[in-house]
């Protein structure tokens, strides 16, 4: 009986080791490439999984958008990841940049059609707290459109809704009656600096 216990213990350890080596680890590694977002990073030990995404904020001189790599919570499927990215885009800007979307704006909902059109439904603050400048209005809209389309190739176009409804414009200039495609005109590239 005394000899049986260590043998059983060794067998148990061997079994657990084999399970880890042949089943758990491969499964764990296999999960990563299968994830939806194109830019992924290894999950932080113990913390929730994150991906690295490009978000857009207003430059110091106020004349362009700047793409910034930020960690964003992982979401699956694509629609869930799109929500996480837009929520991060609505968050505060890293110093010394400024947020492109009026403070207090929240994401009410996000839908994706089979054709790859995303509908991003923002709260009223997107309109009511907007400063009113045409250039800032372009920044607000294309920060969201580009954050979604650049990070999620499965989404080709984005239409912004306010309070669940289609709107003509946010501040009287940019036509929001149609989904908009990725447009990096206002994004400053490294070469410009």
């Amino acid at each position, binding site marked *: 009986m005394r000899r049986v216990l260590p043998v059983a213990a060794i067998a148990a350890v061997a079994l657990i080791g084999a399970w880890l080596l042949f089943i758990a680890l491969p499964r764990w590694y296999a999960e990563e490439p299968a994830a939806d977002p194109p830019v992924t990073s290894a999950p932080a030990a113990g913390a929730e999984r994150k991906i690295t995404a490009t978000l857009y904020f207003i430059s110091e001189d106020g004349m362009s958008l700047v793409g910034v790599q930020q960690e964003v919570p992982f979401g699956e499927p694509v629609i869930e990841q799109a929500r996480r990215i837009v929520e991060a885009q609505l968050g505060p800007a890293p110093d010394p940049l400024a947020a492109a979307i009026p403070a207090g704006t929240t994401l009410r909902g996000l839908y994706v059609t089979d054709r790859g059109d995303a509908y991003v439904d923002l709260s009223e603050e997107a309109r009511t707290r907007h400063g009113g400048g045409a*250039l800032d209005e372009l920044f607000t809209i294309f920060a969201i459109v580009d954050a979604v389309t650049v990070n999620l190739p499965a989404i080709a*176009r984005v239409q912004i809704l306010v309070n669940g409804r289609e709107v003509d414009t946010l501040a009287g*200039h940019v*036509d929001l009656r149609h989904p908009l495609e990725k*447009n990096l005109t206002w994004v400053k590239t490294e070469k410009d600096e």
Partner: protein
Amino acid sequence: MNLRRLSLRSAATAALLACLAAAPAMQAPPPAPYTVLLPEGRQPLAVRVIGGQEMFALDELAKLFDLTVREDTLAGGLAISTKTQTIALTPGQGLASVGGRVISLPAPPARDGRAWFVPVDFVPRALGPALGTRLELRRPSRLIIGGDLRVPRIATQADPQPAGLRLTFNVAPATPHTVTQEGSRLVVKFDAHALDANLPASPSPELVPSIRAAETGAGIEIDLGPRFASFRAADAPGDRGAGRIVLDLVAAGETTAAKPVPEPAVDPPPLLELTPVTGLRTIVIDAGHGGDEHGARGPQGTLEKDVTLAVARRLKGAIEARLGARVILTRDGDQTVGLDERAAVANNNKADLFLSLHANASARPAASGAEVFYLSLADYGEEAQRAAQSSVPVPVLGGGVRDIEVIRWEMAQARHIDESAKFAGLVEGALRERVPMSVRALQQAPFRVLVGANMPAVLVEMGFISNPEQEKQLASEAFQGSLVQALLDSLVRFRDTRGGQEPLLPAGIGN
């Protein structure tokens, strides 16, 4: 996946509950019904405002257009079938699917008891394609026009004259008509199915107490007041297939003799005659924002709407004095004007050029300089590409087929994009000579006010009102004068590229 559906459903339920809760409050002022004009006849169509959106009852649409509506209680969707196609609607979503194509709607369908309601845009966007016909929604005139009915748009202008009053009707497209006097009224009858007319209520109490659309048929009735003596009607061609009726009403006792002398009033406005077709005859200047809509605000409280109006008025004066062109402002006071209306003013007046004036604002006080924009067709995707170069083969009387250029009114700007780019370049160059420019001086953007303009169109951001220094400049007479001079220079250069007229005055003479 299930979770998403669940959250969608709960969102839809919440939206529906909100709509229902709001319904009793909205019932107080019933909006005017729409009129549906079909080859079979004219039908009123009641409209209800639900959650701030104008909506039609699905049952009434079903009766009118012979549709079958099925409610899928399991999936929670609506299936609306025509003879050939089915439209799928999902409660809580502002989307419709027509034959597999997803179309966006301004609001989800709403329910009241057993009845379902859909936003008015459902008719042109989803129902038209499903029926395989054109259903045009003209919101300002509350019309839905089906098939190929002739319903010309008529914009009216009343100008007091020394001898009385001149009424100018711009009719698009040009439509055969007659003008006759029937007792104490003048009647203009059109060879059309109906009219989409914008008429002034009472242009002159003593001469023309009222103007209204005829009760039956396509006509305009002009009541004649006690001072009316005689009238003269003249037709002038408009461009792009539009027509213009000039009606001169001569007042009694206005001229020296007892008998009125119609002579001075007979000719159409001289500009029509003297300026060649190729030049700039009519320019529409759009003072951005206005009324409730202030636009951007400077740190000292200067409002964009006031700056744009001040510059627009000065520019109008300068153009009229120096270019001899007709200038129309989209607003000449502090009133709210919709973005569609602004382009419509230019379209209805057959303007040769549309110039929208704005002041910019940035979250960064340092941002400064003027910027010139024209429309970016790329942001409108395939739709714009199709619009820019679409033609439809149409059978011609006597056999054969002819290609007709077809363009959606909403995308009218697509055809003029090259000219707009040229004009934008000239504006940018002229501004650069007189005022500070932004690092992004010439840009393209999907601006709402430009897309519907059926002529070259440019939007100018004259400076950043959010920049303390520029705020002072924009409010100052001197800086506004520089802007006006630069814009005038650009207009002269643009006109000269179109040919047909020698420069009237050398550019650069001060005001």
